[in-house]
């Protein structure tokens, strides 16, 4: 005898100082923020409180995107795709939804962030990334 069911687990993720600033900028300004490490000069996205490589606190807040380049992607069983996007100016990619036809996906594809209409202070304040007008880089 095997029983199966599911439970729904509601929780609240505390975004922290840097994460809250990042999410508030998405929600209120539709801007994507990163942090420049004053030691190694990498521009980390999303905004962070410190550089994990150098261990120093980073204070320089920099806007990146909203355009970017598709570094990698993966198709999901439902036909949609996840995208690893290197936003313009950033040193690190972020994972998000790829909007539009997943069949268009290829490395180097120029993409653009599309912001959600209803923004509540979460990563889905970016609805996803869609191929940019004008095509390839």
């Amino acid at each position: 005898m095997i029983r199966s069911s599911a439970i729904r687990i509601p929780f609240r993720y505390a975004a922290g100082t840097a994460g809250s600033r990042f999410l508030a900028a998405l929600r209120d300004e539709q801007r994507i923020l990163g942090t420049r490490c004053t030691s190694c000069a990498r521009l980390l996205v999303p905004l962070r409180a410190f550089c994990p490589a150098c261990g120093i606190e980073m204070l320089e807040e920099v806007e990146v995107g909203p355009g970017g380049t598709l570094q990698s992607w993966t198709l999901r069983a439902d036909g949609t795709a996840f995208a690893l996007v290197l936003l313009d100016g950033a040193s690190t990619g972020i994972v998000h939804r790829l909007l539009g036809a997943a069949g268009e996906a290829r490395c180097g594809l120029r993409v653009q962030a599309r912001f959600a209409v209803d923004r509540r202070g979460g990563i889905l304040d970016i609805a996803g990334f869609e191929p940019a007008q004008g095509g390839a880089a």
Partner: protein
Amino acid sequence: MSEPILVPIEMDQSWRYAATAAMARFCEGLKECRIEALRCEGCGRRYLPPRPVCGNCHLLLRDWVPVRDEGRLAAWTVVHVPILDARSGRTREAPYGMGLIRLDGADTTLNHYVAEHDPSRLAIGLRVRAVWRERLEGAIDDILHFEVLR
């Protein structure tokens, strides 16, 4: 500096529970409002819910004995901060009572809801009786809760 943001997230956790042969028989019995315990032929202890091996004697258990759907409260508490019910995935409206119930014919206790949350009306030793749901499914929540007999 922006305000601290808490992102609300709902995660669905699916599960599959593989019952032992003993638990499968116990659950089948519930479909007919029948409760059975497994009795140890060594020490005589009657286990409810049933388990395959006696915790004292380590003997395999196979002697099924009938248990009534009435018993006594062995312990109780009133819950004010509800937890998720693993069967339904929902929280119960607080406050609610919970008890360890020793059914007549069993030596171990069953952890279940008690339809009383007034501490002044709860006491160890109170007689309680199972309230069954209308459509029995062969699961422990076929018993909705235990009502206090007064």
